[in-house]
């Protein structure tokens, strides 16, 4: 019963969440260089497929009801040889050549020194994001990746527990995250926007809910944002926020979560230093609102069954208010936030 309710809530809220759904996660609406190259190949392949299918259908049609002459031709072994061996050898050679050439092209795309390097670690069932600024200190975040537009991004991909797969269709292909290995992926977003990604390798339990968002923003804005994001968390301003912070620490949230600048330095769960600046809570399952924050704290196992965070049922409404207020306040003031 409450199960159903919480879900309808999620549906309702997630409608508010994203702008236009269809284009957020479609390889047919490419928004990055790599994605565009692959989309080009896709259309070529569709054309090829339709062409061959047409040939087969036509041949079958003629074979059944065609003129005696056409059927005599079709019935010859040489025809089988021509259509079954010669024709495929030619066309497939061309396709293979093009495919390999494109692979090469993709390997070279965005392979340059000043690529922005971001490490993403797949965990059941969320994404640990670390911005590896050259020289600067790494900035930890989670479930939302902000990248500068028209700049090659070099993703370092790792897995903490089981195999995951990092995939943002609007920007390019997917690469698996495999325990004990580090895989790489280069993407370049061409225009600003929010692109949805999703774990593409079945990783158990809530695999379906392991989504992420890539926010592509103008390079200048991104630099500014990253600078702010690197700073310690904003201190509580009102006393409700203060109570929230006290509660946050006393309730042991810091055992799993980090809020830079406070005693909370846990690394089991997502870093919450910038939580207030994110667009969603619970790994893109719900938009970031006070109610949803509270729901995740008290009913997290309904929102995302099997996730590691216990449900803090004992907290009183007033306490939850304070916690939510504090968490929502955790953001460096953000122009496009």
């Amino acid at each position, binding site marked *: 019963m409450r199960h159903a309710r919480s879900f309808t809530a999620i549906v309702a809220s997630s409608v508010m969440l994203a702008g236009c759904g269809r284009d957020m996660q479609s*390889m*047919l609406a490419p928004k990055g260089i790599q994605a565009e190259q692959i989309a080009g190949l896709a259309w070529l*392949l569709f054309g090829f497929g339709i062409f061959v299918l047409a040939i*087969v259908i036509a041949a*079958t049609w003629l074979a059944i009801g065609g003129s005696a002459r056409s059927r005599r031709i079709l019935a010859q072994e040489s*025809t089988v040889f021509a*259509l079954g061996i010669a024709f495929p050898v030619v066309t497939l050679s061309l396709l293979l050549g093009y495919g390999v050439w494109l692979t090469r092209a993709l390997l070279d795309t965005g392979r340059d020194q000043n690529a922005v390097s971001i490490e993403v670690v797949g965990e059941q069932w969320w994404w640990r994001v670390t911005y590896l600024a050259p020289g600067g200190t790494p900035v930890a975040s989670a479930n939302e990746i902000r990248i500068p537009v028209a700049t090659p991004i070099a993703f370092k991909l790792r897995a903490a527990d089981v195999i995951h797969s990092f995939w943002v269709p609007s920007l390019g*292909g997917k690469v*698996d995250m495999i325990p004990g290995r580090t895989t790489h992926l280069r993407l370049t977003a061409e225009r600003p926007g929010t692109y949805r990604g999703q774990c593409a390798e079945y990783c158990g339990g809530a695999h*379906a809910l392991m989504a992420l968002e890539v926010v592509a923003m103008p390079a200048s804005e991104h630099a500014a944002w990253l600078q702010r994001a690197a700073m310690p968390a904003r201190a509580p301003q009102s006393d409700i926020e203060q109570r929230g912070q006290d509660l946050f620490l006393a309730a042991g949230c810091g055992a799993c979560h980090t809020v830079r600048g406070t005693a909370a330095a846990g690394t089991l769960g997502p870093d919450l230093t910038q939580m207030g600046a994110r667009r969603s809570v619970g790994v893109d399952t719900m938009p970031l609102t006070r109610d949803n924050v509270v729901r995740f704290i008290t009913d997290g196992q309904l929102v995302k069954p099997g996730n590691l965070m216990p449900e803090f049922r004992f907290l009183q409404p007033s306490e939850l208010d304070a916690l939510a207020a504090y968490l929502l306040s955790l953001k460096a003031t953000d122009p496009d936030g």
Partner: protein
Amino acid sequence: MADTSTVSSYPSTLPRPGGEQAALEAVWASPRSWRIVTDVNNTVIGGFYVGTAMLFFLLAGTLALLIRLQLAVPSNTFLSQETYNQIFTMHGTVMMFLFAVPVVEAMGILLLPQMLGARDQPFPRLGAFAFWAYLVGGLVFFSTLFFDLAPSGGWFMYPPLTSSRFSPNIGADFWLLGIGFIEISAIAGAIEIIVGVLRTRAPGMTLDRMPMFAWTMLIFAGMIVFAFPAIILATILLELERAFGWPFFIAAKGGDALLWQHLFWFFGHPDVYIIFLPAAGMVSMIIPTMAGTPLVGYRLVVVALIATGFFSFGLWVHHMFTTGIPALSLSFFSAASMAVSLPSGIQVFAWIATIASGRLRWTTPSLFILGFLFIFTLGGLTGVMVAMVPFDWQVHDTYFVVAHFHYVLVGGMVFPLFAAFHYWAPAFSRRALSERLGKWTFWLMFGGFNIAFFPMHLTGLMGMPRRVYTYPAVMEWGVLNMVSTMGAFLFAAGIALFLIDLARNLRPDASNTAGNIWNGGTLEWVHNRVYGARSIPIVTSADPLWEQPHLARDVDAGRYYLPGSITGRRETLVTSPIEAAPQYLLRLPGPGWTPFLAAIFTAAFFMLLTVKAVTPALISGVLAVAMLVVWMWDSDPKPLEPVDIGGGIKLTTYASGSLSHSWWAMIVLLLVTGSLYLAYVFSYLYLWTVSPQFWPKPETLAPVASAVLSAFLLVSGSAILVVAGRVLPRRSRSGHAFELLTGLAAAMLLAALIAEVSAQSQAGQRPATDIHGALVFTAAFLQGQMALPILVMAGFVIGRSLGGRLGLERRVIFDNFSLLYHYTIGQSLLGLLLVHGFPRLAG
């Protein structure tokens, strides 16, 4: 041997002695009522087999409908997350392992003897065993779903998700042991089929006259022999990891998650063609009949089959395009994927050519064939697309792929299968299936299928990943998913209609069938009874019923070979593999409890092991072995005087050495174990390339001396057995030397194993500490896996020799034993070389 003069002298016009047929009927009569479970005849077992496979098809299909219901609308709460994960895992697993492979194997068991003009499969009891094992194991495995014990790691069971850490409950163990066990039964069937096709064809049915279905089943079985061992090894490794912590897939200890994917897909990809080829064979049988003309390009089609058989083994990595392995490796397999599409092209156009050269009759089978042509071609084309590496980077693990392989598998296998049901029903049933209902069935299934699966291409391109139990409305995948769900139910309606048709018209009957209503040209269309045809004809063409006038009549009048039971037992002709020249008369076993009970106990052994009830498991294991021994005891009957099978041909009733059909079976079995071991060697070397730092320095290894000792023990064991073979003929005079030598040889093998294990533990190797230790002990484990049956067989050989059932001429049991023994010695030596030699080479 069949010299031409006698061939031309056939069919003989002499009247047959009265009562001959009655005697034949009596010998082949099936047990009545519930004792039917003791029957071993291929017609009966084959029937059960097909029925059971279809039962699993319905069960897994029901799961598919549940999946479709859950995905019909966004954020649906019809199924819980865990339930959904279990259901999609079971859907895939049951469809692939309990339906697809078994059903084609079943069709082979059922059809081949009739097509080839044999009385039965060469190893009827093995076939029965395989079937019962599959039935029991399959049902237990499926019922885990009702106890919430079903695996939920996906049908591909990727570790580390399926490791004991991330899947602690026993669902995964059910998968590993249950499926591993069912694969063993599939392999048993494959051995049966290979020997059956190569050695029990009707005289004169040379390979180039063999029905295309037999060709496909031959390739099918051959592929099983090489593909299945890979996954059996994989399941062994994963179960060893789950049960004892041997870290094959744990990166921290030098294991690698990708090893599983290599092994799994080295089985998994050929498996697709293992499923498809027999279906293609059915098509190649049905089209000529429906078009009333021989298959055009028979030769090309055989080429296509063989090429597919090999090429499909070079594709496994194209399921791993997104794992970040070097792009060059990927493109090798991309190229291979191109190569494998050639044979399919050949077959498609050969079929079209056949249709063109004749006149296609608009029957239900024809409809299903045409539907197959369309769906399979489309699936093949999307297959070419996903074989393009960059494209696959996008669509891999999306609904596009789901659509692709359903087009290939359902189109390539289910549609031909239903064509086959409608086509061959009259050969086994008093009534044919209804043409009217059949056409409705087809249109429902064809329409439903395309409505269900075509939209999935789009949902995939729009970014919907596989194996998600829900999706947010905002993604706008809802409409397409709803359409897919409707299509799925339409498809289901078609299946339901088919069941009604079966209920109304299918009347299985061994003695009196609807007969050759399609005017088919191959031998299964002569009047077949439970023992096949009344007499076994000489075949002089690919479509004997078309080319040889009155063949059906003469066969049924018993005017050809083996018109009755000569030795008073069940018999069939063993012929040479290529020319099909009669070689000897094989006396077949009749009904008996042992195969049934052996299967029950084997199944019990595996299932009890899964639930960690070790003692009962061991008990049933022992019982299973006991049953096998009892079963084998009265096998290999004593040679008789040469007999006249008719047409002036005298044949021996016994053969040993390479002439014996059981020698061939043993060779195939050795191929199976051989490829299992090669898979292990691959794993060893592969893991070294991944984490060489875990390989110890040469000085810390077990001393060379220990390896030399084990090797010496092994070699001398081999030598001893050779001597035993020499002594065998003179058993009577040489006291019990033979028995002693045989026992000694077995003991040597065991001693070598013990020496190796102790040496390794002395050297401080432990299986659970790191990957090297695990691999070292796996070698020992595999050696033990061979040693165990060898000990049992040695005991059996000794027993038979003491029981006077082994001698100068009657020596097949010993021959097969020594084949297995010497092979095992070889494998163990290779193992020693690898385990002791490689680290010294590499370090």
